[in-house]
């Protein structure tokens, strides 16, 4: 187990380097950061040249990348154009986005798996058809439509919630979390349903039934546990996607998280912000995947890591 984890961590190094290099190159293709920095009216050429020199933009790209990576390993992600260190931006943005992701994932697990079990056990009944149709609707409607609609109904018409997020506490994030989770939630439901329906007919379940085990125990201990592997894989990879893909939701609900910082960084051509945030997201993705693989062993006793 320990060796397995160590090997996986080592494998992350080339992935990490490759990913950051790609991002670095892509961001640089977008154009000159100094042009973004100077804004609508532009800087005079002398100031622009001086900025380029101070930001190291006059050096060749490979040298810029090496300097950047060197700084990253000492914990310095550079400075955003408004004078704030990128690490400071991260310290304010990531907690909010992580909270949002936690809300979304918890909703996926609680609602998605419950619905999946219910429909999987009652295949072909009205409940099953109803939920299937509902998930189809949720999957086909884009997130910004769901978001704006809920904001309008709950925030303005019925005044149940405040339409925008101020401080980013858990209670404020429930509706945005639901919006963010909606599509994944539908997928989790469908995945669980299929998996449950299939395993319901398997030998070990029949054995358990024959042994006379209580129904509840059969479902939770035997059926569900074995059916969760594809679902866990999905949720695990979804964590990274939720964190990075919250741009739309964060804009609609005024959440000052990772998506917002990335969006603004791209608009303003702020290389340091974009590369820094994406680098951390890459790490999150890698770690989430590792955790998923470890969870397999928990769920399925046949899977062992040595």
């Amino acid at each position: 187990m320990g060796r397995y984890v160590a090997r996986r961590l080592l494998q992350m190094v080339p992935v990490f380097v490759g990913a950051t290099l790609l991002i670095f190159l892509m961001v640089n293709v977008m154009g000159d950061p100094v042009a973004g920095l100077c804004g609508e009216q532009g800087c005079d050429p002398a100031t622009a040249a001086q900025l380029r020199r101070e930001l190291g933009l006059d050096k060749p790209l490979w040298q810029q990348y090496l300097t950047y990576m060197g700084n990253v390993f000492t914990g310095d992600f550079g400075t955003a154009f408004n004078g704030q260190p990128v690490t400071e931006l991260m310290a304010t943005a990531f907690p909010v986005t992580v909270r949002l992701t936690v809300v979304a994932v918890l909703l996926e697990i609680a609602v998605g798996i419950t619905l999946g079990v219910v429909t999987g056990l009652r295949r072909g009944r009205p409940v099953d058809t109803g939920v299937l149709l509902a998930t189809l609707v949720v999957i086909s409607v884009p997130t910004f439509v769901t978001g704006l609609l809920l904001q309008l109904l709950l925030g303005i018409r019925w005044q149940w919630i405040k339409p925008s997020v101020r401080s980013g506490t858990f209670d404020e994030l429930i509706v945005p979390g639901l919006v963010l989770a909606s599509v994944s939630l539908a997928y989790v439901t469908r995945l669980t349903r299929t998996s449950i329906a299939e395993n319901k007919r398997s030998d070990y379940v029949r054995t358990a039934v024959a042994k006379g085990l209580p129904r509840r125990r059969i479902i939770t201990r035997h059926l569900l546990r074995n059916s969760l592997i594809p679902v866990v894989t999905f949720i695990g990879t979804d964590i990274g996607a939720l964190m990075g893909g919250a741009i739309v939701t964060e804009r609609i609900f005024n959440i000052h998280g990772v998506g917002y910082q990335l969006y603004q960084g791209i608009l303003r051509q702020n290389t340091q912000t974009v590369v820094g945030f994406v680098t951390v997201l890459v790490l999150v993705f890698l770690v989430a995947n590792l955790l998923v693989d470890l969870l397999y062993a928990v769920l399925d006793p046949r899977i062992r890591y040595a």
Partner: protein
Amino acid sequence: MRRSAHARWAVGAVVTALAATACGSAGWSGGGNGGAVLTSSWGDPQNPLEPANTNEVQGGKVLDMIFRGLKKYDPRTGRARDWLARSIETRDSRNFTIRIRRGWTFSNGEKVTARSFVDAWNYGASLRNNQKNAYFFGYIDGYDRVHPDSGGQRADTLSGLRVVDDHTFTVRLNQKFSGFPDTLGYAAFAPLPRLFFTDHAAWVRKPVGNGPYAIASYTKGAQMYLRKWDGYPGPDKARNDGVTLLVYTDSNTAYTDLLAGNLDLADDIPAAQLKNVKGDLGDRYINTPAGIIQTLAFPFYDRAWNRPGMEKVRTGLSMAINRRQITDTIFRKTRTPATDWTSPVLGAAGGYKAGLCGRACDYDPARAKQLIKEGGGIPGGRLRITYNADSGSHKEWIDAVCNSVNNALGDDKACVGNPVGTFADFRNQLGRHKMTGPFRAGWQMDYPLIQNFLQPLYYTGASSNDGRWSDEDFDRLVDRANAETDTARAVALFQKAEEVVRDHMAAIPLWYQNGNAGYSDRLSHVALNPFSVPVYNEIKVG
């Protein structure tokens, strides 16, 4: 039990992660909403809030509240009035003696003296401080040594600035510029306290100025609470107890918050909401002219656009655009068709002259087609209008302009939009002179002077002359106007220069932009100044 050990380990990791995110959520409720404090929408300022480094409206909002300069522009008329200046005297439009009023202090108690200004201006002009508005000091003698176009900086301070005594200093310009005193209301010319120089990091964290408000708390990227400064010595004291500026990720969200009663003032109504705004807000929606003009500029560095006769094509294009239709349908009257190259906020005395463009700005498709034909047709046979697609509703109006041109020419493919992904990339392409056709050009004035609408945009080699247009007659007229001491005569000369722009159609004027805002029923006396910034100190709450 090897397996359950794994389980515990993995679950433990998840729990730790959850716990780590749970803390740190408290805090920053910040700006106390007690008393007559209003909330207002805000965008994250692009640069640190140094006066000479702020060239966009979001940072400008704050500077307008916490700073007062030698002059202040009247929020209604835009006229420059002496504020901290007791007098600004000159005999030759080149050497100015500035006397400042006594009794002004910064909100930390420090006196505002001549040195507060001179030090601030020297800081703003110095190349090593990377100030984006440095070129505003370009008229002052010695600028070329403090901020050389190339090579190292050869002096630390502007030789044209001299402190005479605590309340007097002199300014010597490197050329005659009669409008100079009227530029001094611009934020870049604000005085700065000693703290700015002695502990710059602390100042940037929480700027200290001499305006009617003082910053009580500032959480970067989230919100700023400005409290009314009770000791403010000026006549324009705040009529509310404070303002909380809230950063919004999107102007649509701010608007939604306003409707839900969650926000008091949203000063940028999103284009998509303009059709509902009257119904939603009634008379709590304001839509007033701002010093912004939108034009289409041309790449004069491209031979095809610069050869003789092309002015006919450019004029023809101008006449092919149905401005009225676009401002009415797409912008819902938040823009007004332009008939000159300045802005109505200048007023007739300030140089705005409705109809200066004459027939060249009238929609006349038949004449347009004829002129373009006479001029040799559109270079390359096809017009590609370049714009940045990331903000505003540029795509909509560019498509409408093209549609209008296509209809006039009776050719479906005569004109297409050429979107560029981000504004930064758009600027980048402009800077490298990569344009092959007309491009979107917007100009927001820095100070309400006709000079500011002409010189930076059309003077040879000027800072925002992105099309590299150059004309000797125009340059000469601008020089003469700047040297003219009599304001009325100076304005007349600038208008002559503007006529040169018209005759060559150096840029096609499209429309004047309005500022708009909506507010909650808690507020009254809400207005926007000519810079489309709310006049916060006059707002009454409750």
